[in-house]
């Protein structure tokens, strides 16, 4: 069993009587990259702020490397590097002065370490320029350099891809993976799944302040169930026949073809794949002309979208 770096238990936050975060629990083990997903306004940032002691939770606890953040912030935050939202540094100071500033807030960080993190984020050329002259990508890198200063065990990046161009995003991904390989444990939040899907080992999807789903990609997809795509020459008849079995649910119907007679249709259904042979036999016997049957696995993206969208509507 790997060591638990971050443990969040029953975390809730009410602001002005409104529940922003509701009973959120998850864990992060050493060497993991955790994707923290959710649409804007789902409570992601509030949760992250509670992780790093910017906001006091109404109830629940956050423990980092065995130290409770709320009661022993000095002990707990020692192991954390973080960028909450934008990487805002002091614009009137140089990158180097910014790093020196944050280095002074923690023990055991010397000039050599500052130089080291500067080269990790490849900012050597511009480190003595004022931060206000930096591009967003450079600020992001400086932010990461700052987060890495204290040799953290956990790195928290809140929306790290915000405002970056595709090239920057790609670089960041490579960089994050590289950090993980060096044994760092990361929590990366995003409202866009595609940006972190390839990066993360596990996901926590948060919606409306609650954990909507959690697990690895396989676990998440399996939990979503299988989908089968049918194609009928006569959509109306085919689908009516298909749905006579109560174990089959229609998810989506797409009509196509010549509309003069009865139009052809595609039907996306949720059903277990064991049912396919007997259903084909049943439909063939019923005279339905089947043009195609195929198994469809939803991407995590689709799942994420349906999960978060449906709940928005509900």
């Amino acid at each position, binding site marked *: 069993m790997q060591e638990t770096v971050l443990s969040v238990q029953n975390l809730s936050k009410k*602001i002005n009587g409104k529940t922003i975060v509701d009973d959120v629990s998850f864990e992060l083990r050493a060497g993991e990259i955790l994707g923290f997903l959710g649409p804007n306004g789902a409570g992601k940032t509030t949760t992250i*702020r509670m992780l*790093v*002691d*910017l*906001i*006091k939770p109404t109830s629940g606890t956050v423990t980092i490397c065995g130290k409770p953040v709320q009661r022993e*912030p*000095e*002990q*707990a*935050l*020692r192991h*954390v590097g*973080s960028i*909450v*939202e*934008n990487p*805002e*540094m*002091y*614009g*009137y*100071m140089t990158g180097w*002065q910014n790093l020196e*500033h*944050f280095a*002074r*807030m*923690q*023990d055991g960080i010397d000039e050599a370490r500052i130089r080291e993190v500067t080269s990790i984020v490849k900012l050597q050329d511009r480190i003595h320029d004022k931060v206000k002259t930096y591009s967003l990508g450079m600020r992001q890198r400086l*932010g990461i350099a*700052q987060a890495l200063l*204290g040799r953290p065990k956990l790195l928290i990046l809140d929306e790290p891809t915000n405002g970056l161009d595709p090239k920057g995003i790609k670089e960041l991904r490579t960089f994050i993976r590289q950090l993980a390989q060096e044994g760092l444990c990361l929590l990366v939040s995003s409202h866009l799944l595609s940006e972190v899907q390839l990066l993360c080992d596990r996901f926590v999807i948060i919606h409306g302040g609650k954990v909507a789903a959690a697990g690895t990609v396989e676990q998440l997809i399996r939990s979503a169930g299988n989908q089968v795509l049918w194609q009928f020459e006569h959509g109306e008849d085919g689908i009516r026949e298909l749905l006579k079995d109560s174990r089959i649910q229609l998810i989506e119907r797409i009509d196509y073809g010549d509309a003069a007679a009865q139009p052809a249709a595609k039907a996306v259904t949720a059903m277990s794949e064991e049912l396919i042979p007997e259903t084909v036999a049943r439909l063939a016997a019923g005279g339905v002309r089947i043009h195609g049957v195929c198994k469809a696995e939803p991407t995590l993206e689709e799942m994420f979208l349906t999960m978060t969208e449906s709940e928005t509507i509900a």
Partner: protein
Amino acid sequence: MLRLAALIQNEAMKLWLKKRFLVIVLILLILIPVFTYAQHKMVKNNREHFADWRNQTLQQIADIENTLSSDRIPEEWKKGRRIAVQQLRYYLEHDINPSEPSGVQFTREFLGNAITLFIPMLVLAIGSDIVSGERTAGTIKMLLTRPVRRWKILLAKLLALTLYVSLTIAVTVILCYLISGFVFGYGGFGAPVLTGFRLQGGTVDAQAVHAIPQWRFLLMQAGLCWFASMIVAILGLMVSVLVRSTAASMVTMMAAIIAGSILSSMSSTWTSAKYLFSVNLKLTGYLDGSPPPIEGMTLPFSVAVLSVWGAASLAVSFRVFTKGDILN
């Protein structure tokens, strides 16, 4: 403890690199020559018209007496004028020139006039965004996620502010002396100045009046100036903690200070105004015996009122800063 020093260094360097202090030095470099020139004009004018300072002082007394005979002037104000007459007479009787022009004398006058408005403004220019600035820029999120207790960060900010308050007063005194000394001469350290006037009703109790060398008077003034400025700085810190926007926190403090100086110049009959902090800022006035804005105010009273304000705002600042959520 070493960590606290490093934190103070952080805050002091931030203020330094924001070039706030430079701005203050520039303001002083522009304003002091202006005032020096005005004073020089006045001294020159007096030299042309009067044989020596005694005649000038006597004329001053006669002028005040003439204003006293006017019915248009409110009684409260006359009381202050009568006190001024008594003091001027006291100077004459003891053959001490109340305003022998010199670099030190100019500095003394400048400090006495700057304590209510000018120096507080300078202090606010340095410190009014010390917390709200970090909120506006978002850097507070970096600052508070470091493994340092929040009270230590606020304490470091307060101490850094203290250092700059001291520096501001030092720079004011030094620049005043250097610039005005160029015109009025660099002497005047030993010139006697009377202090210890006690005001009872409309008369001056001269029992405790004694002469002290001007350098000592200047040092006392600067000490009081420092105290008043620290209270302003502490209040500014509180407003900076409470108010999110830098502009709002600056404006709030300035409004409070200007309101105070207006109230004190109105020689208000509203006596409860003496518990407002900004009415109590003119601490140096007690040294040279100018009448207080509201009757019954004394130096210990004002110091006590200011201390209470300072302590209360410190309590509020630390409470809010350590417990508050960083939401923006």
